[in-house]
């Protein structure tokens, strides 16, 4: 399939999902702010400086509408996900409530759990000689870590995964499926809030029930906004980060050998994997007024996609932008965005990627992609990664 990326850009086209870099190369050269009629129409910012400035300019590029970050909108929602879909100054107050839970020091305390879950999953398939690194590893890893983070039963992880993938995948072709999953996820969050109000603990939801904003307690609807955001934003993104990385290391055994020989390189490599294969390729904003970007006029009310993936391969910022250099420094990628809505879960995502790489390389150092024709990408390109990554590997190591 060939696509006219200048006049008919579509981030869900399989050709784009397979090879976004060649599309970005053309856009950077020929039209850095293209418009597409798809999904109700949207503009795309692709230059690093435009994306960076746009993300900082929250007055012009607003996040304050439910569903605005997803193109097309995922499900109809009449409440905002908090703090993602709130603009400053209120945003700052909402974000401050949860920031301590996502800090580097708080997240570091989860490392034993992340390692336990990672190894438990590897134990399950290591004797089989084969596994699907997304379905049997990245997905359950990320959802189980999320349950630990949120203080909800680890047995509920599979349910969360099902709802979130139904929401993101269903929004393209099966809206009913997405709406059903969303309703179930909301019901689950509401039940959890009610349970914590009845019997408080030391967990994330209890903290929210006890938090105050402007001298009053958070409402159930506000806490729902926090809960739904944490459960959706914290899953497929990190799954993509892990899946993309494990695919890359299967295909580039020289880099894999370097990381096996010197594990201290892994944190720097993680940043490069995030740049080179950004789990979030783009997120939407709403233009509140007419604005000109890089010579292109964007009207008020327009949907504008901030293309992290394109910004991260902008040759004006990065040398050899389309090469994955695992020791690249400095590396000012914006895979986690920037500005008021920069990713709160960044430290947790980094920790999960780090531990996943360390343990897979330690225990399955010779894994390889089984049959490239069995690789399956996500059906959408805004959150880009693998949905199925079947690998084979040799005899067990402890």
């Amino acid at each position, binding site marked *: 399939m060939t696509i006219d990326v200048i006049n008919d850009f579509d981030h869900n086209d399989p050709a784009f999902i397979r090879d976004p870099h060649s599309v970005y190369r053309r856009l950077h050269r020929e039209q850095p702010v293209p418009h597409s009629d798809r999904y109700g129409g949207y503009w795309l910012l692709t230059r690093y400086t435009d994306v960076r400035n746009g993300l*900082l300019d929250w007055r012009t590029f607003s996040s304050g509408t439910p569903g605005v970050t997803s193109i097309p909108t995922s499900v109809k929602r009449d409440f905002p996900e908090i703090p993602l879909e709130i603009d400053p100054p209120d945003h700052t107050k909402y974000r401050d409530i949860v*920031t301590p839970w*996502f*800090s*580097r*020091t708080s997240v*570091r305390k989860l490392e034993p759990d992340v390692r336990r879950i990672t190894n438990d999953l590897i134990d399950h398939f290591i004797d089989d000689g084969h596994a699907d690194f997304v379905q049997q590893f990245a997905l359950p890893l990320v959802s189980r870590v999320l349950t630990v983070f949120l203080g909800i039963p680890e047995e509920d992880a599979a349910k969360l995964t099902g709802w979130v993938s139904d929401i993101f995948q269903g929004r393209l072709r099966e809206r009913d499926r997405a709406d059903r999953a969303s309703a179930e996820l909301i019901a689950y969050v509401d039940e959890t809030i009610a349970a914590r109000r009845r019997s408080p603990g030391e967990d994330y939801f209890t903290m929210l029930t006890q938090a105050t904003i402007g001298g009053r307690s958070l409402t159930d609807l506000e806490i729902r906004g926090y809960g739904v955001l944490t459960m959706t934003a914290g899953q497929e993104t990190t799954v993509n980060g892990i899946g993309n990385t494990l695919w890359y290391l299967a295909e580039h055994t020289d880099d894999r050998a370097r990381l096996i020989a010197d594990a201290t390189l892994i944190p720097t490599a993680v*940043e490069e994997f995030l740049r080179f294969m950004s789990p979030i390729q783009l997120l939407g904003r709403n233009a509140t007024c007419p604005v000109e970007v890089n010579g292109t006029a964007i009207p008020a009310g327009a949907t504008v996609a901030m293309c992290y993936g394109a910004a991260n391969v902008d040759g004006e910022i990065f040398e050899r932008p389309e090469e994955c250099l695992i020791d690249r*420094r*400095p*590396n*000012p990628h*914006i895979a*986690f*965005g*920037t*500005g008021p809505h*920069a990713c*709160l879960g*960044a*430290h947790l995502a980094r920790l999960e990627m780090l531990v996943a790489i360390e343990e897979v390389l330690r225990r399955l150092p010779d894994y390889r992609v089984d049959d490239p024709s069995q690789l399956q990408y996500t059906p959408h390109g805004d959150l880009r990664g693998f949905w199925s990554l079947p690998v084979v590997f040799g005899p067990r190591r402890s």
Partner: protein
Amino acid sequence: MDVEVDRDRCFGYGRCADLVPEAFTLDGDGKSVAGDTRGVDPRRLAMAAWACPMQAIRLLNENGEEVPSP
């Protein structure tokens, strides 16, 4: 040029320490700390302020007045 890191805003993304390691380090809490920046190229300090996701780095001139970030 002097710099000031707003510790309340800093979230420890680590951009500054990666870009300008001669001026910024991350402390035990994972938050940015600026060292002695007088010998550091002001353009590099400005780059750290520019790249900070939280816009937590302020640039100060010799009179202690804030210099707008590029």
